[in-house]
């Protein structure tokens, strides 16, 4: 088996390792006597994840616990080294001070340790190594649900949504009454705008969640309105209004969209305008207000509103599309054609760049693909997005 990517780290200068060990040895000499057990390391790693305030100290404690074990040549020593490498970035110690265990040692480690270390890697933005440790864990059957949960988390951030859905499916098989995997699937579908799938998963999650999770309920209503299922949305919205009226005030965009679909332009407009007075840059709300104004024939206001939406999110092709439509209706055909051309360019570019962004998500250390994305966005005039990917590329390049 080839070495995992993260194991291709520099060899640790022996002197550095020795001096590091020497500094720590006095402090943790009492640990050495009990240095056969990985239990304290596991506990410390757990503490690290549950600590809200002093995470750095928790990480330091974990690193310190590993030090007495670093010179062991067995699986325990290898596991300790990986714990050290996992926690090192949170403490400021030099990770290159510890050698990376050989690949075959990884397969001898216990799943619980692989998952703990993978979690450390993941939360210190080392997505590739985290994914590799998760993959080893997934090849086993113990700690299955923990492995699936972490795999979902890691792979979600790597843009591997198909795998995330697959892991959630397995989790559902193992825990059919658990609403969480359904929530995961709902979220994946929502991110992709696959509202049909979102609804199916969200409805299952709602059914399995007791007591009622009203936030999830609002998301479901939002999904219904995205699909134009105004009858379903109204039924659930009225239920929400009956039991948790204060939450209605906190879902103005959903409420306004529902009213718009019901043909209640006046109330829909009133809610969305009030909301926009407090959140003037909300692109979705601006697009909805613009559509409302367009439907009512107020072309001038609609153009102004869509202009605001465009400014608030220059990458949203819908704003350009609607600007084109509205300008055409107001007789400004040349301007309409310009906006429509930009809309089409964005549409094409997004299809093209969707693939590139997926690649970027899969390759967290690939600066080149990020530079290419920056260049592509710059070519179509989306400076903000170009700057975003430039920053990301520079960040990745610097980390190397």
């Amino acid at each position: 088996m080839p070495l995992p990517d993260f194991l291709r780290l520099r060899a640790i200068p022996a002197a550095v390792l020795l001096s590091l060990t020497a500094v720590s040895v006095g402090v943790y000499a009492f640990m050495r006597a009990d240095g056969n057990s990985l239990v304290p390391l596991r506990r410390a790693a757990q503490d690290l994840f549950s600590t809200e305030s002093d995470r750095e100290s928790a990480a330091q404690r974990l690193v310190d616990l590993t030090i007495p074990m670093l010179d062991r040549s067995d699986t325990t020593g290898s596991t300790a080294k990986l714990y050290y490498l996992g926690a090192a970035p949170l403490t400021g110690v030099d990770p290159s001070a510890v050698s990376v265990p050989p690949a075959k040692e990884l397969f001898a480690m216990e799943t619980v340790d692989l998952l703990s270390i993978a979690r450390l890697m993941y939360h210190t933005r080392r997505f590739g190594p985290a994914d590799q440790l998760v993959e080893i864990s997934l090849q086993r059957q113990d700690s299955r649900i923990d492995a699936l949960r972490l795999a979902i988390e890691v792979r979600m951030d790597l843009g591997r949504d198909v795998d995330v859905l697959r892991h959630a499916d397995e989790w559902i098989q193992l825990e059919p009454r658990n609403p969480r995997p359904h929530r995961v699937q709902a979220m994946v579908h929502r991110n992709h705008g696959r509202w049909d799938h979102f609804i199916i998963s969200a409805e299952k999650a709602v059914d399995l969640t007791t007591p009622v999770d009203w936030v999830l309920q609002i998301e479901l209503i939002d999904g219904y309105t995205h699909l134009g299922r105004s009858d379903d949305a109204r039924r659930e919205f009225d239920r929400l209004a009956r039991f948790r009226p204060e939450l209605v005030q906190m879902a103005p965009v959903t409420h306004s969209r529902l009213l718009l679909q019901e043909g209640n332009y006046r109330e829909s407009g009133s809610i969305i305008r009030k909301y926009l007075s407090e959140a003037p840059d909300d692109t979705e709300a601006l697009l909805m207000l613009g559509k409302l104004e367009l439907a009512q024939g107020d072309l001038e206001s609609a153009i102004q509103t869509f202009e605001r939406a465009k400014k608030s999110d220059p990458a949203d092709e819908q704003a350009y599309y609607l600007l084109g439509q509205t300008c055409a209706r107001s007789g400004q055909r040349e301007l309409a054609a310009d906006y429509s051309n930009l809309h089409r360019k964005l549409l094409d570019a997004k299809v093209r760049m969707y693939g590139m962004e997926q690649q970027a998500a899969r390759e967290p250390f690939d600066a080149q693909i990020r530079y290419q994305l920056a260049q592509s966005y710059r070519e179509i005039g989306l400076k903000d997005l170009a700057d975003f990917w430039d920053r990301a590329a520079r960040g990745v390049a610097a980390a190397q």
Partner: protein
Amino acid sequence: MRVLPGVQAHCLAVGFFVLMSAISAGCGVNAPPESKPKPTDALTTGATESPNAGNARLPFAQPVIRSLRSSRDSDWFREITADSGLNFTYRDGSESGFYQLLESVGGGVSAIDFDQDGWQDLCFAGGGAIHRQNDSLTVTGRHQALYRNSGGSFLTDVTALCGLQAGQLYTHGTLTTDIDTDGFPDLIIAGYRGLQVWWNAGDGSFLETSARHGVVSDRWNITVAAGDIDRDSLVDLYVLTYADWTPDLARVCHNDQRLKDICGPTGFPGTRDLLLRSDGHRFHDATDQAQLVAGNRGLGIVSADIDQNGHLDFFVVNDVEENQLYLNSGTLPLKEDGVLAGVAYSSTGQREGSMGVDLGDFDGDELADLWYTNYSHQDNSLLRNEHNNGFLHYADITGLSGVSRKWVGFGTGFSDFDCDGWPDLYVINGHVAYERLDSPYFQPPQLFRNDRGQRFTDVTDIGGAYFEHSRSGRGSACVDWNNDGAMDLVVVHQNEPVSLLQNQNAAESWIRVRLIARNTERTATGAKVSVRTSERMLTQWIISGGSYLSSNDRRLLFSLPDEESVTVTVTWLGGMSQTHRLPPGNYTIIEGGRAYATP
């Protein structure tokens, strides 16, 4: 005001919130890496390579669930296929197991009164087969079928008798038109790398005259729309084409189950449609003059005077591409205005996979609104005519969003099935891929009642037993086959017998109008008929194309409240109009002439 997480469409924030609460409460050490909401997945059947994948089950190997429900008197439709003598099946060639895109398109039906006896006969495209020859594939055709209507009680297969058996073209769309304006309707059948013109000799026989008429195209022809684009009284033809595709054994695609399935269309560029102008004897290619777009994956077309300027326009819907609206000012080129008119994209500016199409006045404002059916996970699109200042998407606020997203819509149309004066909608569904997880191959049809132009209500459950049965539907046509004043439906399926659905609703009274034009082509495509009742104005258009690969009954049928007479106004292509005060019944109205009752 604080807004709850998840309420906004900031997907990333919502996603992270839900994920963390779902699987890792309390361990959010870091922010997630950079990522942003992504565009919706492509619409293709998918091309995920999976070397060990199996094959999707072919249609004939899939279980078909038959409805056990018997017909009820309250049903809108009763299937009478067997009783009518109709027995025909379109074949798509899928049984050979080559998983070719060609198999997915399907076939259509034309209503045609070929013998001019006042009863609508039916012509069906036949489809074809795909064969392997060494390492390549060849495509062959099956002949079409013509059924003669005997007084609205029986249909007889007269294909051989009428000489329609010849022809080895793999076929899709059928068009009824009168290419030589002799009063006997002819047929044009479109297919893969060819067109057939079946000229009606008037003696009950047809002759294939595509070469003689110069109606030729070696593209993947889907269907044809006819009309007089230059008002010279001659029929011109718009040939809708699909994609630059050839059969290929080596091309393999996989669906969302990683099973080998039909390759989606996005891997094949669209081809340029054709505009053929008639000089009275032959047709000549006027595509360049018309400035049709360089390429499009066309699947649906409807022609009428959409902008009411007196000239025939075309609305073309495409598969995962922008739709086109060709506006005609009387001289070529046509002006393509789909994007600025608001008919090119979905309501959110996305490209759609569009198939069936129709035109009608759903809200009673006497303007031509547009309707087309789409791929799964997309809403079908209703476009309201904004007083000839573009179109606005109206599915959202008329109850038509979210009700069809599981299905892939094909044959469709406006028709007043419940005889209340408001055009209802039907949609024939069926997937193109054989075994996807998210949307099955066999799908149920749908029926939507128009509630006084404000909303559409799903009334599929009272449609009748046919509407409870999933099939892979394609072409369909509205035709009053028994002349009872209630519009019936004919539906073509993939590899399953066609269905004839008799409408069980009854109008209190009705008026039916057949038009004969003099100053434009004889069948009067593009003319508008308005019927003023005591309650309101009813408006319909004589169209060509419409639905999917099919031709509707060209007689316009208006259900009326119980009235002694109504005012009928015909606005012909060119703008001339004439008005008649007529009692309910069947009429033929001649341009510039009188309206006479017909049996």
